[in-house]
């Protein structure tokens, strides 16, 4: 479903931050992404959620070659991707409710359903009493939960989360991870960047490790079989 081949990335004219990134994510898979600070985890996720184009290499997302996908088609792809940004990126002028409702409203879901889904999900992440609060008045952990709710409200095909449990205690961290598990059970492909060994040990999903711009992948993400058969067919 997701395939990277020899992908390189740089910001502007700067040095190459990511080098020769090659991996595949099978539909319905669940991976962690680890690596030291500054290794390039967030940058890799940015490529995945279509915020940047790679400076070289091939990216297939939902079996579409990104290089040949016209700009007008990107919103449709992005609507299938839920993102928890490392810095949340909540809209400060909107309430918690309106922030979470955003993806649904953008896709034109009826207001009646928006009310129902958003209330339910905010209940589940324990923010019933902060529905009308502006992000500025929320704690770090509360903001994080709003950001997670916004990422999963439209049941994306691909969920990308950048340190989604960095600001909550372990108990809440595990609770939020169950949300991702639940989504994953319904078919969502999940990739979570985290520093937390606790989470990795607790859930035991395969780990992709990035260090100094290059990626080591577990067998589950190497796409080895497919890659080899392609080599042969060339």
């Amino acid at each position, binding site marked *: 479903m997701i395939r990277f081949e020899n992908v390189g990335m740089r910001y502007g004219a700067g040095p190459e931050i990511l080098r020769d990134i090659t991996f595949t994510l099978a539909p319905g898979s669940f991976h962690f992404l680890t690596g030291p600070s500054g290794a390039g985890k967030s940058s890799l996720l940015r490529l995945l959620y279509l915020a*940047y184009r790679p400076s070289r290499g091939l990216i297939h997302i939902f079996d579409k070659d990104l290089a040949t996908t016209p700009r007008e088609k990107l919103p449709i792809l*992005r609507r299938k991707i839920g*993102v928890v940004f490392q810095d949340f990126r909540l809209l400060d002028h909107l309430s918690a409710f309106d922030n979470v409702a*955003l993806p649904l409203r953008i896709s034109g879901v009826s*207001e009646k359903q928006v009310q129902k889904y958003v209330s339910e999900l905010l209940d589940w992440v324990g923010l019933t009493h902060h529905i009308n609060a502006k992000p500025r008045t929320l704690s770090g952990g509360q903001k994080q939960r709003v950001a997670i709710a916004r990422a999963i409200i439209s049941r994306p095909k691909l969920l990308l989360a950048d340190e989604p449990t960095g600001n909550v205690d372990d108990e809440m961290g595990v609770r939020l991870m169950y949300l991702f598990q639940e989504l994953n059970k319904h078919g969502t492909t999940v990739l979570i960047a985290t520093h937390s060994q606790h989470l990795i040990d607790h859930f035991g999903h395969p780990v992709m490790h990035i260090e100094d711009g290059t990626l080591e992948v577990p067998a589950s993400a190497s796409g080895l079989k497919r890659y080899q058969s392609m080599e042969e067919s060339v």
Partner: protein
Amino acid sequence: MARTDHLPLSTDPSTKLMPWLVGFLVFIAVLATSGSMLLTGLADMWDKGLSGSVTIQIPPLEGDSEVETTAKTENILEAVQKTQGLGEVRLLPNTEIIELLSPWLGENINPENLPLPKLIEAEIDNLEAVDFEELNRRLRAISPGAIVDSHDVWRDHMIGLLNILRLVGLSVVALVTLSGVIMVVFATRGGLVAHNEVIEVLHLIGARDSFIARQFQSHVFWAALKGAVIGAILSFGVIWGLAEMANNLTGDSNLSTLPGLDTTQLVILGFIAPIASFIAMYAARRTVLTTLQKIM
């Protein structure tokens, strides 16, 4: 339920100014348009010759006796009376001619010493029906020196002047529209820069450019409409005030001869405010769409 503003545009300094600027521009546009309309009415009025009359001069011919001149004048009077499109015809008595000439020749003119021309005045009932060339030919046949003065030249000059003024009025409207559009374009670009982080998040969540454009559009439309309505109302106030002043100056007796604005023209003036708001909305939309096109 109130629609959610997905961009906090109402607090932007650049868009806060918009109602005022649009209001000012619409104020000017309504004044200029109504001025053009009044001038059009005036030009039409003169063109139709509502105030028109025609004067025929018959200079005394060298060697013609008094009797001959009188006879020719009688013939000309008859010919003028038979001319289509002319109304009441009157031969001006000598005393009136002397009165007309006195500014140039002084009070004490002796008609015995000065050969006075004969003057015939005819009201124009229907200008289009009058064939001035034919009239001229017929009168010349009777008396070669006869001159038909239909005030054409003067009228044409005035109408030419009015047309220039009308053009000036329309240019003002065009310029005001252009500056309004430029203002909206810059305000919108400023808004796009100021909110680029929010716009990026909206994009990443899957918003199309048109979704973001709609935020700007509706905001600009309502801001512009607010200013435009106020500007139009003020403008109507000024027009009404000027009309009152004009009526007081010319006196009530002349009121009916001043061209006013008819209902159609008033409706057109009333439409300027909403039209301006739609133009502003469209300018904002185009700006957003073309600017966003340049980013991923």
